[in-house]
Protein backbone atom coordinates (compact mmCIF):
# COMPACT_ATOMS: atom_id res chain seq x y z
CA UNK A 1 0.00 0.00 0.00
CA UNK A 2 1.58 3.22 -1.09
CA UNK A 3 2.12 5.98 1.43
CA UNK A 4 -0.49 8.69 1.40
CA UNK A 5 0.65 11.73 -0.54
CA UNK A 6 0.41 15.13 1.09
CA UNK A 7 -2.99 16.64 0.49
CA UNK A 8 -4.52 13.31 -0.51
CA UNK A 9 -7.70 12.63 1.37
CA UNK A 10 -7.28 9.86 3.88
CA UNK A 11 -9.56 6.87 3.96
CA UNK A 12 -11.27 8.03 0.79
CA UNK A 13 -12.56 4.62 -0.17
CA UNK A 14 -14.48 4.03 3.01
CA UNK A 15 -16.15 7.40 2.78
CA UNK A 16 -16.90 7.25 -0.91
CA UNK A 17 -19.43 4.48 -0.44
CA UNK A 18 -21.11 6.45 2.34
CA UNK A 19 -21.70 9.38 0.07
CA UNK A 20 -23.37 7.38 -2.70
CA UNK A 21 -27.04 8.25 -3.08
CA UNK A 22 -29.39 5.77 -1.51
CA UNK A 23 -32.58 4.87 -3.32
CA UNK A 24 -34.58 1.64 -3.47
CA UNK A 25 -32.98 0.63 -6.77
CA UNK A 26 -29.39 0.90 -5.56
CA UNK A 27 -30.37 -0.88 -2.35
CA UNK A 28 -31.77 -3.82 -4.31
CA UNK A 29 -28.88 -3.97 -6.77
CA UNK A 30 -26.36 -3.80 -3.94
CA UNK A 31 -28.19 -6.57 -2.13
CA UNK A 32 -28.17 -8.80 -5.21
CA UNK A 33 -24.51 -8.01 -5.83
CA UNK A 34 -23.48 -8.86 -2.26
CA UNK A 35 -25.44 -12.12 -2.46
CA UNK A 36 -23.57 -13.04 -5.63
CA UNK A 37 -20.21 -12.16 -4.02
CA UNK A 38 -20.91 -14.53 -1.13
CA UNK A 39 -22.11 -17.26 -3.48
CA UNK A 40 -19.02 -16.80 -5.68
CA UNK A 41 -16.82 -17.20 -2.62
CA UNK A 42 -18.46 -20.52 -1.77
CA UNK A 43 -18.19 -21.75 -5.34
CA UNK A 44 -14.49 -20.88 -5.40
CA UNK A 45 -13.99 -22.99 -2.29
CA UNK A 46 -15.63 -25.93 -4.06
CA UNK A 47 -13.36 -25.45 -7.05
CA UNK A 48 -10.31 -25.68 -4.83
CA UNK A 49 -11.59 -28.85 -3.19
CA UNK A 50 -14.37 -30.73 -5.00
CA UNK A 51 -13.93 -33.92 -2.91
CA UNK A 52 -17.27 -33.50 -1.18
CA UNK A 53 -19.18 -33.28 -4.44
CA UNK A 54 -17.59 -36.45 -5.75
CA UNK A 55 -18.32 -38.36 -2.53
CA UNK A 56 -21.90 -37.10 -2.54
CA UNK A 57 -22.41 -38.61 -6.00
CA UNK A 58 -22.10 -42.14 -4.61
CA UNK A 59 -25.49 -42.09 -2.94
CA UNK A 60 -27.67 -41.23 -5.98
CA UNK A 61 -25.69 -43.79 -7.96
CA UNK A 62 -26.59 -46.50 -5.43
CA UNK A 63 -30.25 -45.48 -5.38
CA UNK A 64 -30.58 -45.57 -9.14
CA UNK A 65 -28.31 -48.50 -10.00
CA UNK A 66 -29.26 -50.83 -7.13
CA UNK A 67 -32.60 -49.82 -5.61
CA UNK A 68 -33.98 -48.50 -8.90
CA UNK A 69 -33.04 -51.48 -11.02
CA UNK A 70 -34.27 -54.04 -8.51
CA UNK A 71 -37.63 -52.32 -7.96
CA UNK A 72 -38.09 -51.86 -11.71
CA UNK A 73 -37.91 -55.66 -12.05
CA UNK A 74 -40.39 -56.50 -9.31
CA UNK A 75 -43.04 -54.02 -10.50
CA UNK A 76 -43.98 -53.52 -6.86
CA UNK A 77 -44.78 -49.83 -7.05
CA UNK A 78 -47.55 -48.54 -9.32
CA UNK A 79 -46.43 -45.54 -11.39
CA UNK A 80 -48.66 -42.90 -12.97
CA UNK A 81 -49.13 -43.70 -16.66
CA UNK A 82 -47.37 -47.03 -16.06
CA UNK A 83 -43.96 -45.60 -16.91
CA UNK A 84 -40.98 -47.80 -15.94
CA UNK A 85 -40.20 -47.46 -12.24
CA UNK A 86 -36.65 -46.31 -13.02
CA UNK A 87 -38.11 -43.33 -14.94
CA UNK A 88 -40.40 -42.56 -12.02
CA UNK A 89 -37.50 -42.82 -9.58
CA UNK A 90 -34.91 -40.67 -11.43
CA UNK A 91 -36.47 -37.25 -10.56
CA UNK A 92 -37.04 -38.52 -7.01
CA UNK A 93 -33.37 -39.37 -6.61
CA UNK A 94 -32.46 -35.99 -8.10
CA UNK A 95 -34.63 -34.30 -5.43
CA UNK A 96 -33.12 -36.54 -2.77
CA UNK A 97 -29.52 -35.73 -3.61
CA UNK A 98 -30.47 -32.05 -3.69
CA UNK A 99 -32.03 -32.41 -0.23
CA UNK A 100 -29.03 -34.23 1.24
CA UNK A 101 -26.42 -31.82 -0.05
CA UNK A 102 -28.48 -28.81 1.01
CA UNK A 103 -29.53 -29.92 4.46
CA UNK A 104 -25.95 -30.49 5.59
CA UNK A 105 -24.57 -27.32 3.98
CA UNK A 106 -25.11 -25.30 7.17
CA UNK A 107 -22.22 -27.10 8.83
CA UNK A 108 -19.83 -24.75 7.04
CA UNK A 109 -21.32 -21.94 9.11
CA UNK A 110 -20.43 -23.74 12.33
CA UNK A 111 -16.87 -24.21 11.05
CA UNK A 112 -16.62 -20.55 10.15
CA UNK A 113 -18.01 -19.55 13.51
CA UNK A 114 -15.47 -21.64 15.39
CA UNK A 115 -12.67 -20.28 13.24
CA UNK A 116 -13.75 -16.63 13.42
CA UNK A 117 -14.33 -16.01 9.70
CA UNK A 118 -17.90 -15.03 10.34
CA UNK A 119 -16.98 -12.19 12.70
CA UNK A 120 -15.30 -10.37 9.89
CA UNK A 121 -18.26 -10.75 7.55
CA UNK A 122 -20.64 -9.45 10.20
CA UNK A 123 -18.41 -6.43 10.88
CA UNK A 124 -18.50 -5.55 7.15
CA UNK A 125 -21.31 -3.50 5.60
CA UNK A 126 -22.86 -6.62 4.03
CA UNK A 127 -26.60 -6.95 4.71
CA UNK A 128 -27.23 -9.97 6.96
CA UNK A 129 -29.88 -11.31 4.66
CA UNK A 130 -27.39 -11.13 1.76
CA UNK A 131 -24.96 -13.26 3.79
CA UNK A 132 -27.69 -15.88 4.23
CA UNK A 133 -28.94 -15.57 0.65
CA UNK A 134 -25.42 -15.99 -0.74
CA UNK A 135 -24.89 -19.15 1.28
CA UNK A 136 -28.29 -20.48 0.22
CA UNK A 137 -27.56 -19.74 -3.44
CA UNK A 138 -24.24 -21.56 -3.20
CA UNK A 139 -26.19 -24.54 -1.85
CA UNK A 140 -28.17 -24.34 -5.09
CA UNK A 141 -24.98 -24.40 -7.15
CA UNK A 142 -23.71 -27.43 -5.23
CA UNK A 143 -26.97 -29.22 -5.90
CA UNK A 144 -26.65 -28.50 -9.64
CA UNK A 145 -23.45 -30.53 -9.73
CA UNK A 146 -25.50 -33.44 -8.37
CA UNK A 147 -28.10 -32.86 -11.06
CA UNK A 148 -25.45 -33.36 -13.73
CA UNK A 149 -24.51 -36.69 -12.16
CA UNK A 150 -28.13 -37.85 -11.89
CA UNK A 151 -28.73 -36.91 -15.55
CA UNK A 152 -25.68 -38.93 -16.63
CA UNK A 153 -26.88 -41.95 -14.64
CA UNK A 154 -30.38 -41.53 -16.06
CA UNK A 155 -29.02 -41.57 -19.61
CA UNK A 156 -27.05 -44.73 -18.85
CA UNK A 157 -30.23 -46.35 -17.51
CA UNK A 158 -32.15 -45.18 -20.63
CA UNK A 159 -34.63 -43.03 -18.74
CA UNK A 160 -36.72 -41.05 -21.25
CA UNK A 161 -35.47 -37.52 -20.62
CA UNK A 162 -37.10 -34.34 -21.87
CA UNK A 163 -34.21 -32.44 -23.48
CA UNK A 164 -36.16 -29.34 -24.53
CA UNK A 165 -34.37 -26.16 -23.36
CA UNK A 166 -37.44 -24.90 -21.52
CA UNK A 167 -37.70 -28.10 -19.48
CA UNK A 168 -33.97 -28.03 -18.71
CA UNK A 169 -34.20 -24.43 -17.54
CA UNK A 170 -37.23 -25.41 -15.46
CA UNK A 171 -35.25 -28.19 -13.80
CA UNK A 172 -32.39 -25.79 -13.19
CA UNK A 173 -34.65 -23.28 -11.47
CA UNK A 174 -36.42 -25.96 -9.45
CA UNK A 175 -33.08 -27.30 -8.19
CA UNK A 176 -31.70 -23.84 -7.39
CA UNK A 177 -34.85 -22.83 -5.53
CA UNK A 178 -35.26 -26.11 -3.68
CA UNK A 179 -31.62 -26.36 -2.65
CA UNK A 180 -31.51 -22.69 -1.64
CA UNK A 181 -34.57 -23.23 0.56
CA UNK A 182 -33.24 -26.35 2.27
CA UNK A 183 -29.80 -24.70 2.63
CA UNK A 184 -31.41 -21.72 4.35
CA UNK A 185 -33.25 -24.17 6.61
CA UNK A 186 -29.89 -25.79 7.34
CA UNK A 187 -28.37 -22.39 8.17
CA UNK A 188 -31.18 -21.74 10.62
CA UNK A 189 -30.48 -25.05 12.38
CA UNK A 190 -26.74 -24.25 12.47
CA UNK A 191 -27.46 -20.81 13.95
CA UNK A 192 -29.69 -22.30 16.63
CA UNK A 193 -27.76 -25.38 17.76
CA UNK A 194 -24.20 -24.04 17.47
CA UNK A 195 -22.27 -27.31 17.83
CA UNK A 196 -21.27 -29.69 15.07
CA UNK A 197 -22.45 -32.79 16.92
CA UNK A 198 -25.96 -31.48 17.51
CA UNK A 199 -26.15 -30.14 13.99
CA UNK A 200 -25.25 -33.50 12.46
CA UNK A 201 -27.71 -35.26 14.76
CA UNK A 202 -30.57 -32.98 13.79
CA UNK A 203 -29.61 -33.16 10.12
CA UNK A 204 -29.71 -36.97 10.18
CA UNK A 205 -32.98 -36.88 12.07
CA UNK A 206 -34.67 -34.61 9.53
CA UNK A 207 -33.53 -35.98 6.18
CA UNK A 208 -35.34 -39.29 6.36
CA UNK A 209 -38.80 -37.90 7.24
CA UNK A 210 -38.48 -35.33 4.44
CA UNK A 211 -37.49 -38.09 2.04
CA UNK A 212 -40.01 -40.77 2.99
CA UNK A 213 -42.94 -38.39 3.42
CA UNK A 214 -42.58 -37.20 -0.16
CA UNK A 215 -43.36 -38.68 -3.54
CA UNK A 216 -39.64 -39.29 -4.23
CA UNK A 217 -39.71 -43.09 -4.33
CA UNK A 218 -43.46 -43.91 -4.43
CA UNK A 219 -46.53 -41.97 -5.52
CA UNK A 220 -48.62 -40.18 -2.90
CA UNK A 221 -51.67 -42.16 -4.07
CA UNK A 222 -50.46 -45.38 -2.38
CA UNK A 223 -49.73 -43.69 0.97
CA UNK A 224 -51.98 -44.17 4.01
CA UNK A 225 -54.22 -41.18 4.72
CA UNK A 226 -52.18 -39.64 7.55
CA UNK A 227 -49.00 -39.78 5.48
CA UNK A 228 -50.75 -38.13 2.53
CA UNK A 229 -51.52 -35.17 4.76
CA UNK A 230 -47.90 -34.87 5.86
CA UNK A 231 -46.67 -35.32 2.29
CA UNK A 232 -48.75 -32.36 1.16
CA UNK A 233 -47.10 -30.18 3.76
CA UNK A 234 -43.62 -31.35 2.77
CA UNK A 235 -41.77 -28.97 0.45
CA UNK A 236 -39.84 -31.89 -1.05
CA UNK A 237 -43.12 -33.21 -2.49
CA UNK A 238 -43.48 -30.02 -4.55
CA UNK A 239 -39.86 -30.25 -5.64
CA UNK A 240 -40.30 -33.85 -6.78
CA UNK A 241 -43.56 -33.02 -8.54
CA UNK A 242 -41.93 -30.19 -10.51
CA UNK A 243 -38.89 -32.31 -11.38
CA UNK A 244 -41.02 -35.25 -12.51
CA UNK A 245 -43.01 -32.99 -14.82
CA UNK A 246 -39.95 -31.27 -16.28
CA UNK A 247 -37.26 -33.94 -16.37
CA UNK A 248 -39.21 -36.78 -18.00
CA UNK A 249 -40.36 -36.81 -21.57
CA UNK A 250 -44.16 -36.75 -21.38
CA UNK A 251 -44.01 -36.09 -17.64
CA UNK A 252 -46.98 -34.46 -15.96
CA UNK A 253 -47.37 -32.55 -12.74
CA UNK A 254 -50.03 -33.87 -10.37
CA UNK A 255 -50.07 -30.71 -8.21
CA UNK A 256 -49.58 -28.07 -10.91
CA UNK A 257 -46.28 -26.40 -11.73
CA UNK A 258 -47.49 -22.98 -10.62
CA UNK A 259 -48.22 -24.34 -7.15
CA UNK A 260 -44.89 -26.23 -7.07
CA UNK A 261 -42.81 -23.19 -7.94
CA UNK A 262 -44.96 -20.93 -5.77
CA UNK A 263 -44.40 -23.09 -2.68
CA UNK A 264 -40.65 -23.41 -3.37
CA UNK A 265 -40.14 -19.69 -4.02
CA UNK A 266 -42.17 -18.50 -1.06
CA UNK A 267 -40.62 -21.04 1.30
CA UNK A 268 -37.11 -20.11 0.20
CA UNK A 269 -37.69 -16.38 0.62
CA UNK A 270 -39.16 -16.80 4.09
CA UNK A 271 -36.37 -19.14 5.23
CA UNK A 272 -33.62 -16.87 3.86
CA UNK A 273 -35.08 -13.88 5.69
CA UNK A 274 -35.28 -15.85 8.95
CA UNK A 275 -31.68 -17.06 8.50
CA UNK A 276 -30.55 -13.49 7.84
CA UNK A 277 -32.28 -12.29 11.00
CA UNK A 278 -30.61 -15.01 13.05
CA UNK A 279 -27.17 -14.45 11.50
CA UNK A 280 -25.86 -12.08 14.20
CA UNK A 281 -26.37 -14.91 16.71
CA UNK A 282 -23.34 -16.57 15.18
CA UNK A 283 -21.01 -14.34 17.21
CA UNK A 284 -22.74 -14.30 20.57
Amino acid at each position, binding site marked *: *MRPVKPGERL*NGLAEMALKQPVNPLTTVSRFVYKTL*VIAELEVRKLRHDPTELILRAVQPALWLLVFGQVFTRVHAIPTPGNIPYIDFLAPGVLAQSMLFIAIFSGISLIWERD*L*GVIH*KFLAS*PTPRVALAAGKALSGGVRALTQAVIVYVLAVILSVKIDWSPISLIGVLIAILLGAAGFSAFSLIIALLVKTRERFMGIGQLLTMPFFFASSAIYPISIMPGWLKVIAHGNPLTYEVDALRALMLSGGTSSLGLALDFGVLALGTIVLVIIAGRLYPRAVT
Partner: protein
Amino acid sequence: MPIPIIETVALTRRFGELTAVDNLNISVEPGEVFGLLGPNGAGKTTTIKMLTTLLQPTSGEASVAGFNITRQASDVRRVIGYVPQLISADGTLTGYENLMVFAKLYDVPRGERKRQVLEGLSFMGLDDAANKLVRTYSGGMIRRLEIVQSIIHRPKVLFLDEPTVGLDPLARKALWEHISQLSAEHGTTILLTTHLMEEADHLCSRVAIMHHGKVAALGAPADLKASIDVDGATLEDVFIHFAGDKLEPESGANYRETRQTRRTAERLG
Protein backbone atom coordinates in the same frame (compact mmCIF):
# COMPACT_ATOMS: atom_id res chain seq x y z
CA MET B 1 -8.73 19.11 21.72
CA PRO B 2 -9.64 17.21 18.59
CA ILE B 3 -13.01 15.49 18.42
CA PRO B 4 -12.58 11.88 19.61
CA ILE B 5 -12.93 9.25 16.89
CA ILE B 6 -14.06 6.61 19.36
CA GLU B 7 -16.05 7.59 22.41
CA THR B 8 -17.88 5.43 24.89
CA VAL B 9 -20.27 6.81 27.48
CA ALA B 10 -21.19 4.51 30.35
CA LEU B 11 -20.96 1.57 27.95
CA THR B 12 -22.16 -1.58 29.69
CA ARG B 13 -22.72 -5.17 28.67
CA ARG B 14 -24.11 -7.87 30.89
CA PHE B 15 -24.32 -11.61 30.23
CA GLY B 16 -26.90 -12.79 32.75
CA GLU B 17 -25.37 -12.16 36.17
CA LEU B 18 -21.96 -11.29 34.81
CA THR B 19 -21.16 -7.70 33.94
CA ALA B 20 -18.48 -8.09 31.27
CA VAL B 21 -18.12 -4.38 30.56
CA ASP B 22 -19.10 -2.05 33.37
CA ASN B 23 -19.78 1.62 32.79
CA LEU B 24 -16.88 2.13 30.39
CA ASN B 25 -15.86 5.68 29.49
CA ILE B 26 -13.00 6.01 27.06
CA SER B 27 -12.22 8.35 24.21
CA VAL B 28 -9.67 7.81 21.49
CA GLU B 29 -8.29 10.60 19.35
CA PRO B 30 -7.84 10.38 15.57
CA GLY B 31 -4.53 8.80 14.58
CA GLU B 32 -3.89 7.25 17.97
CA VAL B 33 -2.81 3.67 18.60
CA PHE B 34 -4.83 2.89 21.68
CA GLY B 35 -4.34 -0.28 23.69
CA LEU B 36 -6.88 -2.11 25.85
CA LEU B 37 -5.00 -4.22 28.37
CA GLY B 38 -6.18 -6.64 30.92
CA PRO B 39 -6.27 -10.25 32.03
CA ASN B 40 -8.61 -12.78 30.41
CA GLY B 41 -12.20 -11.92 31.17
CA ALA B 42 -11.47 -8.24 31.79
CA GLY B 43 -13.94 -7.25 29.07
CA LYS B 44 -11.56 -6.31 26.26
CA THR B 45 -13.07 -8.52 23.57
CA THR B 46 -16.61 -7.66 24.64
CA THR B 47 -15.74 -3.97 24.29
CA ILE B 48 -14.37 -4.54 20.77
CA LYS B 49 -17.40 -6.60 19.80
CA MET B 50 -19.68 -3.75 20.84
CA LEU B 51 -17.62 -1.12 19.02
CA THR B 52 -17.60 -3.24 15.84
CA THR B 53 -21.43 -3.62 16.10
CA LEU B 54 -21.30 -7.39 16.60
CA LEU B 55 -22.79 -7.15 20.07
CA GLN B 56 -25.49 -4.81 21.37
CA PRO B 57 -24.66 -2.92 24.55
CA THR B 58 -26.95 -3.55 27.52
CA SER B 59 -26.84 0.15 28.34
CA GLY B 60 -24.75 3.20 27.59
CA GLU B 61 -23.67 4.58 24.25
CA ALA B 62 -20.67 4.68 21.98
CA SER B 63 -19.73 6.32 18.73
CA VAL B 64 -17.12 5.43 16.14
CA ALA B 65 -16.07 8.04 13.57
CA GLY B 66 -19.10 10.08 14.53
CA PHE B 67 -21.63 7.27 14.07
CA ASN B 68 -23.64 5.78 16.89
CA ILE B 69 -22.89 2.05 17.21
CA THR B 70 -26.51 1.03 17.72
CA ARG B 71 -28.50 3.55 15.70
CA GLN B 72 -26.05 3.88 12.80
CA ALA B 73 -24.52 0.41 12.84
CA SER B 74 -24.32 0.08 9.07
CA ASP B 75 -22.45 3.39 8.75
CA VAL B 76 -20.04 2.30 11.46
CA ARG B 77 -19.37 -0.94 9.55
CA ARG B 78 -18.36 1.03 6.44
CA VAL B 79 -15.64 3.02 8.14
CA ILE B 80 -14.05 0.38 10.37
CA GLY B 81 -11.82 -2.62 9.83
CA TYR B 82 -11.80 -5.53 12.26
CA VAL B 83 -9.35 -8.37 12.79
CA PRO B 84 -10.91 -10.79 15.28
CA GLN B 85 -8.86 -12.78 17.73
CA LEU B 86 -9.77 -16.00 15.99
CA ILE B 87 -8.70 -16.80 12.45
CA SER B 88 -10.67 -14.80 9.93
CA ALA B 89 -8.97 -15.64 6.64
CA ASP B 90 -10.42 -18.60 4.78
CA GLY B 91 -7.85 -21.39 4.53
CA THR B 92 -9.54 -22.97 1.53
CA LEU B 93 -9.10 -19.85 -0.62
CA THR B 94 -5.97 -18.15 -1.90
CA GLY B 95 -4.71 -14.93 -0.33
CA TYR B 96 -5.75 -12.99 -3.42
CA GLU B 97 -9.28 -14.43 -3.32
CA ASN B 98 -9.62 -13.66 0.38
CA LEU B 99 -8.79 -10.02 -0.32
CA MET B 100 -10.92 -9.71 -3.43
CA VAL B 101 -14.03 -10.87 -1.58
CA PHE B 102 -13.65 -8.13 0.99
CA ALA B 103 -12.81 -5.51 -1.63
CA LYS B 104 -16.17 -6.33 -3.19
CA LEU B 105 -18.09 -6.47 0.08
CA TYR B 106 -16.71 -3.07 1.07
CA ASP B 107 -17.76 -1.55 -2.28
CA VAL B 108 -14.24 -0.67 -3.35
CA PRO B 109 -14.89 0.69 -6.87
CA ARG B 110 -14.40 -1.92 -9.59
CA GLY B 111 -11.51 -0.08 -11.21
CA GLU B 112 -9.67 0.27 -7.88
CA ARG B 113 -10.06 -3.24 -6.56
CA LYS B 114 -7.18 -5.02 -8.21
CA ARG B 115 -4.77 -2.21 -7.41
CA GLN B 116 -5.85 -2.09 -3.77
CA VAL B 117 -5.49 -5.85 -3.44
CA LEU B 118 -2.03 -5.91 -5.02
CA GLU B 119 -0.85 -2.91 -3.02
CA GLY B 120 -2.14 -4.51 0.15
CA LEU B 121 -0.31 -7.74 -0.60
CA SER B 122 2.96 -5.94 -1.24
CA PHE B 123 2.52 -3.68 1.82
CA MET B 124 2.48 -6.81 3.98
CA GLY B 125 5.14 -8.62 1.94
CA LEU B 126 2.77 -11.28 0.68
CA ASP B 127 3.24 -10.84 -3.10
CA ASP B 128 4.79 -14.27 -3.61
CA ALA B 129 2.07 -16.06 -1.67
CA ALA B 130 -0.86 -14.30 -3.36
CA ASN B 131 -2.02 -17.32 -5.32
CA LYS B 132 -1.32 -19.98 -2.72
CA LEU B 133 -4.08 -21.40 -0.52
CA VAL B 134 -4.08 -19.69 2.87
CA ARG B 135 -3.90 -23.02 4.70
CA THR B 136 -0.30 -23.29 3.46
CA TYR B 137 0.61 -19.91 5.05
CA SER B 138 2.61 -19.49 8.26
CA GLY B 139 0.95 -17.93 11.30
CA GLY B 140 2.54 -14.54 10.75
CA MET B 141 1.50 -14.54 7.09
CA ILE B 142 -2.11 -15.35 8.02
CA ARG B 143 -2.24 -12.44 10.48
CA ARG B 144 -0.75 -10.07 7.92
CA LEU B 145 -3.26 -11.19 5.32
CA GLU B 146 -6.09 -10.67 7.81
CA ILE B 147 -4.93 -7.13 8.44
CA VAL B 148 -4.83 -6.39 4.71
CA GLN B 149 -8.37 -7.81 4.48
CA SER B 150 -9.47 -5.31 7.08
CA ILE B 151 -7.78 -2.25 5.56
CA ILE B 152 -8.63 -2.92 1.91
CA HIS B 153 -11.27 -0.16 2.06
CA ARG B 154 -8.95 2.24 3.93
CA PRO B 155 -10.96 2.32 7.16
CA LYS B 156 -10.78 5.23 9.58
CA VAL B 157 -10.53 2.95 12.58
CA LEU B 158 -8.92 -0.48 12.72
CA PHE B 159 -9.75 -2.87 15.57
CA LEU B 160 -7.18 -5.57 16.30
CA ASP B 161 -8.19 -8.15 18.91
CA GLU B 162 -5.06 -9.84 20.30
CA PRO B 163 -3.21 -9.46 16.98
CA THR B 164 -0.09 -11.37 18.01
CA VAL B 165 -1.63 -14.25 19.95
CA GLY B 166 0.08 -17.51 18.98
CA LEU B 167 2.87 -15.87 16.99
CA ASP B 168 6.54 -16.60 17.65
CA PRO B 169 8.67 -13.64 18.81
CA LEU B 170 10.10 -13.03 15.34
CA ALA B 171 6.72 -12.94 13.61
CA ARG B 172 5.42 -10.77 16.45
CA LYS B 173 8.15 -8.16 16.00
CA ALA B 174 7.57 -8.15 12.23
CA LEU B 175 3.86 -7.56 12.79
CA TRP B 176 4.59 -4.67 15.18
CA GLU B 177 6.59 -3.01 12.43
CA HIS B 178 3.69 -3.37 10.02
CA ILE B 179 1.20 -1.97 12.53
CA SER B 180 3.44 1.02 13.29
CA GLN B 181 3.92 1.62 9.58
CA LEU B 182 0.18 1.46 8.96
CA SER B 183 -0.43 4.03 11.67
CA ALA B 184 2.37 6.32 10.47
CA GLU B 185 1.68 6.19 6.73
CA HIS B 186 -2.10 6.06 6.66
CA GLY B 187 -2.97 7.84 9.85
CA THR B 188 -5.41 5.02 10.62
CA THR B 189 -6.63 5.08 14.20
CA ILE B 190 -5.93 1.69 15.75
CA LEU B 191 -7.55 0.17 18.81
CA LEU B 192 -5.92 -3.07 19.86
CA THR B 193 -6.22 -5.46 22.76
CA THR B 194 -3.34 -7.42 24.19
CA HIS B 195 -2.11 -8.89 27.38
CA LEU B 196 1.50 -8.50 26.39
CA MET B 197 2.92 -5.48 28.18
CA GLU B 198 5.86 -5.32 25.82
CA GLU B 199 3.47 -5.07 22.90
CA ALA B 200 1.49 -2.23 24.44
CA ASP B 201 4.69 -0.43 25.40
CA HIS B 202 6.01 -0.76 21.88
CA LEU B 203 2.92 0.20 19.90
CA CYS B 204 0.49 2.27 21.92
CA SER B 205 0.42 5.99 22.47
CA ARG B 206 -2.11 5.44 25.28
CA VAL B 207 -3.42 2.41 27.10
CA ALA B 208 -6.40 1.63 29.27
CA ILE B 209 -5.93 -1.17 31.75
CA MET B 210 -9.20 -3.01 32.20
CA HIS B 211 -10.12 -5.07 35.20
CA HIS B 212 -13.51 -6.68 35.84
CA GLY B 213 -15.02 -4.67 32.99
CA LYS B 214 -13.85 -1.31 34.34
CA VAL B 215 -10.95 0.94 33.47
CA ALA B 216 -8.42 0.58 36.28
CA ALA B 217 -5.87 2.98 34.81
CA LEU B 218 -5.58 5.10 31.69
CA GLY B 219 -2.75 7.07 30.16
CA ALA B 220 0.46 7.04 28.11
CA PRO B 221 2.67 4.06 28.99
CA ALA B 222 5.42 6.39 30.28
CA ASP B 223 3.01 8.32 32.53
CA LEU B 224 1.54 5.15 33.95
CA LYS B 225 4.99 3.82 34.73
CA ALA B 226 5.85 7.08 36.50
CA SER B 227 2.62 7.02 38.48
CA ILE B 228 3.38 3.93 40.54
CA ASP B 229 5.80 3.71 43.38
CA VAL B 230 8.36 1.40 41.80
CA ASP B 231 11.79 2.42 40.62
CA GLY B 232 12.37 1.70 36.95
CA ALA B 233 8.82 0.43 36.64
CA THR B 234 7.85 -1.48 33.52
CA LEU B 235 4.35 -1.57 32.11
CA GLU B 236 4.26 -5.08 33.60
CA ASP B 237 4.52 -3.54 37.06
CA VAL B 238 1.78 -1.07 36.21
CA PHE B 239 -0.41 -3.90 35.07
CA ILE B 240 0.13 -5.89 38.26
CA HIS B 241 -0.38 -2.75 40.32
CA PHE B 242 -3.76 -1.96 38.78
CA ALA B 243 -5.08 -5.33 37.68
CA GLY B 244 -4.06 -7.16 40.82
CA ASP B 245 -1.43 -9.86 41.15
CA LYS B 246 -3.48 -12.71 42.51
CA LEU B 247 -4.83 -15.43 40.28
CA GLU B 248 -8.57 -15.23 40.01
CA PRO B 249 -10.05 -18.43 38.72
CA GLU B 250 -13.53 -16.98 38.20
CA SER B 251 -12.26 -14.36 35.78
CA GLY B 252 -10.66 -16.90 33.44
CA ALA B 253 -11.94 -17.92 30.04
CA ASN B 254 -14.41 -20.79 29.87
CA TYR B 255 -13.74 -24.15 28.28
CA ARG B 256 -14.91 -23.19 24.81
CA GLU B 257 -12.92 -19.95 24.72
CA THR B 258 -9.81 -21.70 25.95
CA ARG B 259 -10.22 -24.39 23.33
CA GLN B 260 -10.62 -21.78 20.62
CA THR B 261 -7.63 -19.73 21.74
CA ARG B 262 -5.44 -22.81 21.85
CA ARG B 263 -6.66 -23.92 18.45
CA THR B 264 -5.98 -20.49 17.01
CA ALA B 265 -2.53 -20.58 18.54
CA GLU B 266 -1.95 -24.02 17.09
CA ARG B 267 -3.00 -22.98 13.60
CA LEU B 268 -0.95 -19.81 13.66
CA GLY B 269 2.08 -21.41 15.28
